[in-house]
């Protein structure tokens, strides 16, 4: 052993920032994604098409580019943010485009027939959304939403590029000190895996359970 073990706590300290980054970025992206999905589904054509186009652009932005743009680019126009805040904003921007697509598919997938049935028993537009469309769309989106979090979690390692002291950054720093990349990176892999694996299991279970109920996940 080349002193790696003494540095394990240093690496694990990075877990907190990784979780803060990815959870905050992901949940903000959920809010923004829901908002854009609602606009796409429920607003008049020109607005809906514009927002759809915005989500496409967002999905086309590489995360690294977004991070560099927010952290190094925005100060030029007078907006200087700490690196962790920049990372959260970058993740939010890029991921909201994907989540908008996920939620839109989930809402539209519920289908005209369910809506007609809701109207036929006398539910108002709002009640039909609240009691029929929303619950079914929520269920349909759930497995994909959980999967999306695992992707964001792993992608948050790109915050390394703007110096956020998250899991991956810590591991690289330790590697440079102990002159060994293998052990720190294996440890990091284990950490990512032990967060992502349970989530993917839950996602898969949800998917199967929903299928048995006749709700196809998006």
């Amino acid at each position, binding site marked *: 052993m080349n002193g790696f073990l003494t540095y394990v706590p240093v690496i694990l300290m990075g877990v907190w920032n990784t979780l803060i980054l990815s959870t905050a970025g992901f949940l903000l992206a959920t809010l923004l994604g829901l908002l854009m999905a609602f606009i796409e589904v429920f607003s008049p054509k020109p607005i809906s098409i514009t927002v759809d186009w915005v989500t496409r652009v967002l999905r086309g932005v590489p995360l690294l580019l977004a991070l560099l743009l927010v952290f190094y680019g925005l100060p030029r126009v007078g907006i200087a943010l700490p690196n962790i805040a920049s990372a959260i904003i970058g993740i939010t921007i890029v991921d909201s485009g994907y989540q908008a697509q996920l939620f839109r598919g989930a809402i539209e997938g519920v289908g005209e027939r369910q809506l*007609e*049935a809701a109207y036929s028993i006398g539910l108002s537009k709002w009640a039909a959304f609240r009691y029929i469309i929303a619950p079914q769309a929520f269920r349909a989106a759930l497995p994909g939403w959980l999967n999306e979090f695992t992707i964001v979690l792993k992608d948050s390692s790109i915050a390394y590029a703007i110096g956020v002291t998250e899991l991956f950054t810590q591991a690289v720093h330790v590697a440079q000190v102990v002159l060994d990349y293998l052990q720190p990176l294996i440890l990091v892999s284990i950490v990512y895996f032990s967060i992502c694996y349970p989530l993917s299991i839950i996602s898969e279970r949800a998917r199967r359970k929903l299928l048995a*109920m006749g709700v196809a996940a998006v």
Partner: protein
Amino acid sequence: MKVVLEVSNLWKFFGKSPVLRGVSFSVREGEAKVILGPSGAGKSTLLRCINLLIKPDRGSIILDGEEVTAPGVNVARVRSKIGFVFQHFNLFNHLTALENVMLGLIKVKGMNRDDAFKVARESLLSVGISEDLWSKYPAQLSGGQQQRVAIARAIAMSPRLVLFDEPTSALDPELIWEVLRVMEKMSKERMTMIVVTHELGFAMKVADEVVFMDSGAIVERGPPEEVILRPRNERVRRFMERMQYVYSLK
């Protein structure tokens, strides 16, 4: 006998083509009216107008003395008084059979859960859905069971009128009878209903009046024996000959 529904001179255009061309008829309390006619005749469009799912371009619909096609009418309130049974059942996928029936009672009629449960139980039992099926989701039920739950969902709301749009067309032949039998029972219990169907046997047994539609208009109407067995209109005769070929066992 009291008139429940009065449809007068109903017109509906999709684009430039007329789909309903001045349809008029009325339905008395407890009556079962069967609508026959070829594909594209406008039968579904007619039912969807009555249920205010689409807005007719001209003409009026009066339900229980209230003109429901007038501007400013509370559409949801009118719909809660009309049951609709769909060709593809359209049960709420995320709710169990029992919850499908209870939802409207709670959210539309404002009942508490206990009262809603009592009403839902009566409705489900009356269509022959026994307790072991109440906690099943639609995907776990056969087509015939789904359609009977859908009927229970409609009648639980104690509607003034129930509309059926080809309720057995999506069912395997062996399951058709269980749905038709429930509908026959409803009619015997004097539920007012309008049924769009191709089941001539059902029409013969249950209909008080048969209405034949073609190209958006009513071309013949009368007692089932008249319209089905001795049609006067040429178009109706041709239709019935074809149906004879399909259904006759002789």
